């Protein structure tokens, strides 16, 4: 069985689908460059990402899918899981087989997987919209480091642009080493060189003029006062506020 390897991009993945129909190799194994390990007994075919092929596949899928299902495809892709790529491929082939209403056949394993994976990614997106914490830096910009489980930065961009239109901000994904920068006009992708800055977590020092520390303390005060000790339920607390987010949550930074 041939291994089809694409370059980790969504366009690359769509090109893979195009090439599969073009070459008709029968059943294949799907992999991305990041997940790929050469195997002795299978041949490998490396996809050359082609925007035109990708667009044709995207158009074909969108024609056969609702807006929600197309978004589910994109979200599933952003999970960056190897099995997600496999199922997405299966899903695409099923959709192109022209079954009507293919996307709502939850009895089909690929359809169900895409639906469920997309939900996980959407939940992560929602978590990020909630748990991003900005700190104001010396140059007046608001900065937030994140480490999401899935690659949700593209999904949350619109949310933060709509919300913080009158302040410049950066949200930086420390796992995937890229971020979003809004400069009051445009939103752009950036990569920062952290080697040169003093603190790994902030590009510039926290602002003293803007009372950043004061607002962090006030927020911690508030967080403590809002708690009702008689109803203490740490299990529920941790379920709602998963530990992996605590690192960057202002209110979970214990005072010295």
């Amino acid at each position, binding site marked *: 069985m041939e291994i089809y390897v694409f370059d980790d991009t969504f366009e690359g993945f769509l090109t893979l689908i195009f090439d599969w129909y073009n070459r008709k190799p029968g059943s294949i194994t799907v992999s991305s460059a990041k997940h790929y390990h050469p195997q002795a007994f299978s041949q490998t075919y490396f996809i050359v990402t082609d925007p035109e092929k990708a667009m044709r596949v995207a158009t074909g899928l969108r024609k056969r899918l609702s807006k929600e299902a197309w978004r589910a495809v994109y979200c599933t892709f952003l999970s960056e899981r190897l099995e997600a790529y496999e199922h997405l491929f299966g899903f695409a082939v099923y959709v192109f087989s022209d079954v009507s*209403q293919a996307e*709502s*056949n*939850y*009895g*089909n394993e690929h359809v*169900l997987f895409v639906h*469920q994976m997309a939900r996980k990614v959407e939940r992560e997106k*929602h978590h990020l*919209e*909630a*748990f*991003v*914490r*900005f*700190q*104001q830096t010396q140059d007046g910009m*608001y900065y*937030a480091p994140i480490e999401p489980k899935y690659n949700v930065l593209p999904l949350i961009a619109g949310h933060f642009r*709509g*919300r*913080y*239109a*009158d*302040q410049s901000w950066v949200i930086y994904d420390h796992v995937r080493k890229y971020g979003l920068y809004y400069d009051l006009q445009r939103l752009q992708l950036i990569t920062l060189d952290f080697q040169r800055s003093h603190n790994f977590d902030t590009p510039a020092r926290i602002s003293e003029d803007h*009372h950043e520390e*004061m*607002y*962090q*303390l*006030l*927020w911690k*005060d*508030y*967080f*403590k*006062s*809002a*708690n*009702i*000790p*008689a*109803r*203490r*339920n*740490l*299990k*529920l*607390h941790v*379920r*709602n*506020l998963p530990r992996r987010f605590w690192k960057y*949550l*202002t*209110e979970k930074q214990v005072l010295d």
Partner: protein
Amino acid sequence: MNFNRASEKLQILADAAKYDVSCASSGGNRKNTNKGLGDSKANGICHSFTEDGRCVSLLKILLTNHCIYDCAFCVSRKSNDIQRAAFTVEEVVELTINFYRRNYIEGLFLSSGIFKNADYTMERLLRIVKKLRLEERFNGYIHLKTIPGASEELIQEAGLYADRMSINLEMPTEAGLKTVAPEKSHEDVKKPLHFVNQHIQAYNSDRKLILSTPKFVPAGQSTQMVVGATPESDLEIMATADQFYKAYNLKRVYYSGYVPIRQDSLLPSIGTPPPMIRENRLYQTDWLMRFYGFRVNEILDDTHPNLDPEIDPKLSWALRNLHLFPIDINTADYQLILRVPGIGVGSAKKIVAARQFGKLRTYQLQNLGIAYNRAKYFVRCADSPFASKDWQASQIRHFILSSSQNKRQSPQQLTLF
């Protein structure tokens, strides 16, 4: 802003506001069209969770905890010997804006003790929301407490800037309220609820004709009842909720388990744990009414005036109505599938969509993410054996309880040793 003073006030006035349950930031739709700060979307966002597991979505504070009233259940009552404080208009605005900019909150929940009189207090609240909306161009969510007794002009103007307004019923019945707060009555709550509801309806019908009609309380009204302070039954509580949902088009009714805060012969004694399970069952009943098409008297009636703490109200209803089950998952109406214990709105919709592609079998049903361990006693799939076992309600109850309790009890038993 003086940091030390603000910090002190925040601790006092957040502490006093925390017994108000509502923290929803949903239902609003205020777009950031003025290049200002913030927007509110229909689905709210919980930005944090306290150690008691409740969500923090709004900066929930009192403008002041000075109060002319003396309600037995309230921390801020006149006769209580506590520290008093009051925010200035500027302090509330600055806190809200700066917390919002750091993505700590979705907006502001502003309530207040009543100082001097109702209008004086309402006027202050109004100044805060106007400053936020007009000067700071703030489009985040604002939940404003209506001060009972405030004049209608002030309430109406506040409605143009707030997303949600609410007044608490406090106790589920008039009689209950009279015992702990003789100065208050349900009538005082009904009047402004009615007034605001009338305006919401009027603005909505105007908007159908004139698009530029301003928004008036776009996220609707809500109220809250304290549960377990006075001796009302669950039936009385839910009947009141039902009546208020219908009469005033409420978006939500909240049920707040009473946390004893002082020794009072009228109220449960200090140290009595808040009735958390009961509170949970009431919310489940509320959901069954709002999203599952149940009527109150299907779940609660004179022979069953209280909810079963051990099992959820839907299961409880199903066990009393076993003659309706099992239903065939491949042919039953959506409304009936919705009534199966263990199947929620999302799963019911998926079942109806998926069965058009062929009859659903047991494993497919399990994969859909329903609580199959509960649902299995009430449904039949394509591959269910023709004659399923005829269990008694008490047997099913026992099976379900023992399978869920095993999971719940094991960690507790470890602590014994």
